[in-house]
């Protein structure tokens, strides 16, 4: 039989063996878990995403149900966040609004990540005139004043489209204007990565350029991509809110937090019906804050050197 001491040693050995097959993702997850704020951000975001995904199930009313006997009612037991000027349940609209806001955030970031890492990867890997061309394009796009251009595009293109498609225009405008920072960063990373010996080794193994860029270089920058995508998503949600607030993003009747805050432009509503603009404001704040916390936590976890 093992003595107590021996058992302890055996357990230690077991632990050591377990630790020895710990990959980079597990290590990052460990570091991330220690970061309480980032965990809080993650949990808040999970709750919001849950609410958005299951909005039709959770929401007590139909999205466009109008009840003219219940116009502009303050929050009560039957309408948790009150009703608006058309008698629609505000809590329901909040939940559905989160769907649109998060969707815009996710897809805008998706567009910018795909574009940014492709352009950055190609520019960094090939160098020379390809790099020059890509970087000049990046600089041109970067020099567009973001908000005025976004406003112009949504105004011009958006005016010709039915209201329910305006959401997609908003996504694309944000996505196609925000990939430049990522492209620059990835190019920088790849410029230094391609000088590493494993790149030469990859070439010596007879891999094609496409495979080297997609399979060997970009995965090395994945930590940066994840962090930048997370933080970019917060930015995209803010931009969407700003555009919608100005009436140029997603248009009613599709609810988003941005166009719900728009209610506050009416002075009467601003002073007398705070339930119409405070909750969406708080929702935007919470989302952006939690995403930023999560992003910072991810950066610390994935790339401890930058701490």
């Amino acid at each position, binding site marked *: 039989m093992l003595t107590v001491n021996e058992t302890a040693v055996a357990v230690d050995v077991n632990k050591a063996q377990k630790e020895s*097959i710990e990959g980079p993702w597990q290590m990052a997850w460990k570091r991330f878990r220690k970061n309480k704020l980032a965990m809080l951000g993650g949990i808040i975001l999970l709750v919001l995403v849950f609410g958005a995904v299951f909005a039709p199930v959770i929401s007590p009313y139909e999205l466009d149900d109008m009840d003219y006997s219940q116009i502009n009612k303050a929050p009560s037991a039957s309408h948790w966040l009150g009703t608006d000027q058309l008698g629609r349940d505000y809590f329901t609209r909040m939940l559905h609004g989160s769907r649109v806001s998060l969707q815009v955030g996710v897809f805008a970031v998706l567009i910018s990540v795909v574009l940014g890492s492709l352009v950055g990867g190609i520019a960094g890997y090939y160098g*020379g005139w390809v790099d020059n061309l890509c970087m000049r394009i990046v600089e041109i796009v970067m020099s567009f004043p973001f908000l005025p251009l976004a406003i112009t595009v949504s105004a011009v293109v958006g005016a010709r489209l039915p209201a329910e498609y305006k959401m997609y225009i908003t996504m694309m405008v944000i996505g196609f204007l925000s990939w430049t920072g990522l492209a620059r960063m990835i190019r920088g990373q790849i410029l230094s990565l391609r000088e590493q010996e494993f790149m030469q*080794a990859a070439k*010596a*193994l*007879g891999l094609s350029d496409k495979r080297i860029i997609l399979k060997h270089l970009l995965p090395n920058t994945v930590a940066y991509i994840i962090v930048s995508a997370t933080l970019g998503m917060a930015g995209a949600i803010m931009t969407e809110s700003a555009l919608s607030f100005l009436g140029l993003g997603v248009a009613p009747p599709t609810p988003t937090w941005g166009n719900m805050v728009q209610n506050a432009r009416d002075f009467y509503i601003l002073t007398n019906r705070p339930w119409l603009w405070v909750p969406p404001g708080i929702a935007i704040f919470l989302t952006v804050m939690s995403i930023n916390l999560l992003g910072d936590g991810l950066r610390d976890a994935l790339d401890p050197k930058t701490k």
Partner: protein
Amino acid sequence: MSNTILKVKDLRTHFFTDKGVVKAVDGVSFDIQAGKTLCVVGESGCGKSVTSMSVMGLVSKPGKIIEGSSIKYMDNELTTMSDSEYRSVRGNEISMIFQEPMTSLNPVFKIGFQISEVLMLHKEMTKEEAHQKSIDLLDMVGLSRADELVNEYPHQLSGGMRQRVMIAMALACEPKVLVADEPTTALDVTIQAQILELMNDLKSKTNTAIMMITHDLGVVAEMADYVVVMYAGRVVEEADVVTLYENPQHPYTVGLINSIPKLDDEREVLESIEGSVPNPLYLPEGCAFEPRCKSAIPKCKTQRPGLVELETGHKVSCFVIQEGQS
């Protein structure tokens, strides 16, 4: 010879820089036979690594293999191959081991994936077959618990283990030629001996030809069948390993061999070759070694000696020796 696998003839790799043309490799010829090891020796900066990169077709931008150079693998001329043809040779028929095992593996992928990738690419294996083969390969290069290693990342391995992984990768497709660019320089001496032994072992098992780049004459003695001594981008002497150690001819080779410390030596100060390799931008007009050579004659300053065969298989490029002969 009939089983010559790789025939390099008059290889010239020049780098076109802003300051001028650097003739890193300038007219190098040698043959490699199946199942034999050719060692390319020389001090830093004499063009050894550029030679190996030229064979792999990996000379990058300002560098270029000059027309008229020929690298023949079996019956295929490598210098005129298209990129995609070359890719099917690289890693498949000719593969390479690098100097720095610590950085030669991609840090974000598991060992198993990196070996499987080559197999799936060149041998068109399925994922499962490649995975199994990776385990076998790791086993073959003497790594214990290969079945666990395939799921580990490079940073979890020591330098010696990583070099074994590199060898496993290089040998995955059973190449005919293995180019090893100072494979043991970054490793400590005991690991070095193990790696060399492993390479010798695999050579006799698979009949692979090895082209080994090194500046370590101890490694040469252990590995080589045939030796090419390079200086400033040219071959100064070539011979089989026994002849080279017993009867070195070129003053540079003599100097190299004399500078090895010996245990039974009474000397207080180690011998060295005075001076350093000339700047490749401004090579002397005559023999490149002339400024450092103790036995130089006036002719050496103005003319370049060619390689002349002294006896079968032993070639030297030095006027002093050649004239002493005749």
